[in-house]
């Protein structure tokens, strides 16, 4: 296999890594857009998704298990996220940085709780047989490129989520109301929108998506109490790069970071690639400090 195949492989890997970044970051971006709040326990929603997948597959092993696990993890994580939102985050509505810290506390508690429940060592979800194999290209210029089915599946999940979200936001009334809350909470309430419910919906939705990401991670590796932590920092960087609350921006940022990370790994090791990822973001904001998709407004944001 030549270096061309290595690069092609890494580009493909980049898309799959980007899909994970995206699934991990979307929920963050949504609630950040709506409430200016970053949920530091978002990584634990991924973790929950993983454990829900594990539990589901204990009950329904085999090929069907994974397909059932997806909705189960979505609902489970969404419910947990909803609980977190109503009990804690809604109390801190006007103090975004404090929310960040409080949710970090929640993250510690959730990690320790899952350590007590499931043990510190990872549990394992077995990928169904229909995800064995993949596409191996043996001829032509892409010879040597292999597209494992698991990674194709991850990309498919991300695309599915993106389409769903776009439909909701652009073409439903709920989407409009959520965008209104996003922009002026006080006024939204005065026009008759139930702001807290919009928060709750977004939070559940975002957590649910993280739950899906957790299932996806479970196919790739162990489900551990700290599984969310390993993806959360890149997800934060995606949010930073994406621009406020924009799905398109988040998607583009995830793609850029995923591809950058994968391509960097051709030349440097994983550790250095992580460092370069931050350098990349800092350079990026020199050019586009408002993120990939900037929202223009005339407000003097004093």
């Amino acid at each position: 296999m030549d270096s061309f195949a290595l690069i092609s492989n890494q580009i493909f890997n980049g898309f799959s890594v980007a899909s994970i970044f995206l699934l991990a970051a979307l929920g963050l971006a949504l609630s950040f857009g709506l409430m200016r709040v970053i949920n530091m326990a978002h990584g634990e929603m991924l973790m929950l998704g993983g454990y829900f997948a594990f539990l589901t597959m204990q009950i329904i092993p085999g090929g069907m298990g994974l397909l059932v696990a997806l909705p189960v993890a979505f609902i489970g994580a969404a419910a947990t996220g909803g609980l977190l939102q109503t009990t804690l985050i809604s109390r801190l509505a006007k103090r975004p940085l404090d929310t960040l810290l409080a949710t970090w506390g929640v993250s510690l508690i959730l990690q320790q709780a899952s350590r007590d429940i499931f043990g510190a060592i990872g549990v394992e979800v077995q990928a169904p047989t229909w995800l064995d194999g993949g596409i191996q290209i043996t001829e032509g210029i892409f010879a040597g490129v292999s597209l494992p089915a698991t990674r194709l599946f991850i990309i498919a999940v991300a695309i599915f989520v993106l389409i769903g979200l776009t439909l909701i936001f652009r073409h439903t009334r709920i989407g409009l109301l959520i965008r209104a809350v996003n922009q002026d909470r006080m006024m939204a309430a005065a026009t008759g929108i139930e702001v807290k419910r919009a928060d709750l919906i977004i939070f559940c939705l975002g957590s649910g998506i993280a739950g899906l990401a957790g299932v996806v991670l479970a196919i790739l590796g162990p489900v551990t109490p700290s599984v969310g932590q390993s993806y959360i920092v890149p997800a934060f960087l995606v949010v930073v790069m994406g621009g406020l609350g924009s799905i398109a921006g988040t998607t583009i940022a995830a793609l850029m970071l995923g591809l950058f990370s994968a391509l960097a790994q051709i030349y440097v090791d994983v550790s250095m690639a992580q460092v370069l990822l931050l350098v990349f973001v800092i350079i990026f904001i020199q050019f586009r400090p408002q993120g990939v998709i900037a929202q223009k407004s005339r407000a003097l944001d004093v």
Partner: protein
Amino acid sequence: MSQNPILQLQNLSAAYGQSQVLWDIDLNLLPNHAMGLIGRNGVGKSTLLQTIMGTHKVHGGTVIFDGEDVTSLPAHLRARAGIAIVPQGRHIFPHLTVLENLETGLSARGDRGNGKLPEYIFDLFPKLKDVRSRNGGFLSGGEQQQLAIGRALAGSPKLLLLDEPTEGIQPNVVQQIEAAIHTIKTELKVSVLMVEQRIEVVWNIADQFTAMQEGKIILQDDIANMSAEDASNIVRI
């Protein structure tokens, strides 16, 4: 005057943190009436409207709207009960288009209505039709003001709270807005509570007036009883 008031404030008070800004406000507004609320800067006029709307917390006393005690209702439920506000500073949703801004106003109808914008909004403010697909944040002040009123009307309210609707508006549009408010009151049968600095606007539209000073109501009467002298005293020339 056998009618029941559409809005009744009893002993209402409000505060920002430790500092109280409204003291024992009593006020009655009759259906299909317009009331002008006047007073110096900082006496608490905006706070009073926010407290009626429910976007500011009631500290004490009661708000009765259309015969029901709404004191403990959150803002969105008061909106659905039929209160609408055009706040000071307009608070347009900057990244929604004009049309979308108007559509958010439909939420106040809850499940009522057919989800369509009432035509009269565009009759009142033809300009909005021209800019309907522009983002609200890009409109000029006057355009935004019209949009804010339109958005409030989209929910078919029974009571419209207007906080300095002519602030920063060009003179001929002020006339339009005045006319629009008049239409809103007389033809759409919406009661109006309006904070206004321009005494002539109050004069032209309102049936009653209320003057505030330092968080208290100091005078309340029919506009017909207000002499020019009163007017100038109130605003303390």
